[in-house]
């Protein structure tokens, strides 16, 4: 199949799509200039174009973050959307000609793509054509096949078009991909999260939220409740469960409101994530023996001596006489956080699916060090809950006791496991 190079006109010139790459979904999609670290000003708009719920790219191709490298600056507006959409369609079909790769066809596209995948008209098309004159001349000299895509209804004088080009006016993204001979677009589906388990769960909750909204309408409080429910759902999906808990408590205790307590109780039932089984949280730890390995901190997994096998329930004590580093890991749920507590000192790591921390074993250790390894797991991001737990533990006085805050998190859908670890001094 023919590879296609995508060019995107601006009022200042024309930008070529040099590369389009799937990135870690944790980052925001970004448009970079010519392969450098310079992020262009349209990056935030590009992220919104990609990421659900506003974006169309994730909805169609099931990935939330991309890096787009272009050859020239694109500073503003939305007319880049049609060209960028086609770049994604071509990437999905394996037909995007990246920088330096041969292309059987060049597409020059301008237009705005809305949420319904309709292509909307844009301004300054004659000027963009004029600014692309040098590109058109170079393509003509090379005998390249050029396709110009414009929004339907976009009037352009015949004389403004380059000789020998093919021109198509399109009313929809579907027509645009068809013009390039690409497969039909994937069937649109409802918003989906990256984790299958979570997706099903949130689809169900979205339906529940609709029922709640209907209930609120019946109570004559539609507008206020709708906003409130949207806020609560935002807190739930982003994993801000303590904030959600407090918001629901505040709503339930609202004076002079007959329906508040009922709606808050229903929202609590439907919005809080189901807690994963704590047994699903798999903890593991290994230590590096100084005598076995010269550079402790750069030790690879091969250099680790297990002190707790994955799935076991207890850690063997570590001795500073033999070990210089302990590496702790937690995994097993869609989102995981790992805390190491030594007195009131705490370190925290979290992420999707796994978290890892390292603890150096000081040679000068004077007395046995008691470390608590606390793993949190949930079906929603767990960072906010873990940060709250650290704050709670550090704010109190007297002995550090994580039990009460962990119980509160468990009631909000965050599972946990706690394992103690002793690190003994090297001795005289």
């Amino acid at each position, binding site marked *: 199949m023919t590879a296609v190079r995508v060019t995107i006109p601006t009022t200042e010139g024309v930008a070529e799509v040099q590369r389009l790459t*799937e990135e870690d979904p944790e*980052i925001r999609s970004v448009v970079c200039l010519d392969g450098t670290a310079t992020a262009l000003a349209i990056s935030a708009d590009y992220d*919104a174009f990609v990421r659900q719920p506003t974006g169309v790219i994730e909805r169609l191709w099931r990935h939330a973050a991309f890096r787009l490298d272009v050859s020239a600056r694109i500073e503003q507006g939305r007319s880049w959307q049609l060209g960028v959409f086609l770049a994604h369609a071509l990437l999905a079909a394996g037909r995007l000609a990246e920088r330096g790769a041969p292309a059987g066809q060049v597409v020059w596209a301008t237009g705005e793509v809305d949420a319904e995948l309709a292509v909307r008209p844009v301004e300054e098309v004659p000027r963009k054509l004029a600014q692309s004159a040098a590109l058109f001349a170079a393509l003509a000299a090379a005998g390249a096949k050029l396709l110009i895509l414009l929004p339907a209804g976009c009037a352009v004088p015949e004389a403004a078009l380059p000789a020998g080009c093919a021109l198509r006016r399109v009313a929809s993204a579907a027509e645009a991909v068809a013009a390039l001979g690409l497969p039909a677009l994937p069937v649109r589906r409802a918003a989906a999260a990256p984790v299958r388990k979570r997706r099903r769960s949130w689809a169900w909750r979205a339906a529940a939220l609709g029922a709640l909204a209907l209930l609120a309408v019946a109570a004559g409080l539609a507008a206020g409740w709708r906003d409130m429910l949207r806020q609560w759902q935002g807190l739930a999906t982003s994993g801000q469960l303590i904030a959600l808990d407090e918001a629901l408590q505040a709503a339930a205790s609202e004076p002079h409101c007959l329906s508040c307590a009922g709606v808050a109780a229903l929202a609590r039932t439907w919005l809080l994530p189901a807690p994963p089984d704590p047994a699903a949280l798999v903890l593991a730890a290994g230590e590096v023996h100084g005598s076995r390995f010269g550079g402790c901190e750069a030790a690879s997994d091969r250099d680790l001596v297990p002190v707790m096998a994955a799935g076991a329930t207890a850690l063997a004590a570590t001795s500073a006489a033999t070990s210089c580093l302990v590496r702790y890991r937690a995994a097993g749920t869609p989102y995981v956080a790992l805390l*190491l507590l030594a007195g009131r000192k705490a*370190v925290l790591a979290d992420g999707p699916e796994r978290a890892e921390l*390292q*603890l150096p074993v000081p040679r000068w250790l004077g007395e046995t060090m008691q470390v608590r390894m606390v793993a949190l797991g949930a079906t929603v991001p767990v960072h906010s809950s873990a940060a709250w737990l650290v704050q709670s533990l550090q704010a109190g006085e007297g002995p550090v006791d994580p039990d009460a805050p962990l119980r509160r998190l468990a009631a909000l859908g965050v599972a946990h496991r706690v394992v103690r670890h002793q690190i003994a001094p090297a001795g005289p």
Partner: protein
Amino acid sequence: MSAQWSALGPASQAAAAERFAALSARDRMAAGGAAEATRPCFAQLWAWATDPAQEFGPAERAALAADPPLRADFALLLRRVAVLQVPAAAAAASGRLEARSGPGFKLRLARSRADPGQTYVVLELAAGIAPRLLLILQDGAPVARLPLPEAAEGFAQVIVASDGPEAEALRDPRSELILT
């Protein structure tokens, strides 16, 4: 009487900056010596702490490194103007951190799949917090400084070299992060 810098409005901040610049100029004129003339004045410290467009390269870092009292002043100033601070990780932390967090703030590093030589620094910020600069300090001395783009929906993101001083400093648990 004292007030948090972030609590002042733009007009008050501009007025304060002008006053600091004037005081610095007066100090320079009063000192008069050649050696004093090369010492960064308060207005420069102010710009390093708050102005994303201000140059802050090896020469500026060296000037601070060579002058402990000045470095202490700068650290104090940063803490006054900070909208967010993340202290160095606890003594228990070691190795390279891929994420840092504090109240109202979360930072994550992610190496680019497109170009492993580049790393994304993703900041997640609580509502209403809009820092323009991220300064990274070790032992009170700035080791790197990152101008930040305007946050969108609570996220700000910059790209740095994977083996550059900014990424190295952010991964170092000894680093203190200050957002101004």
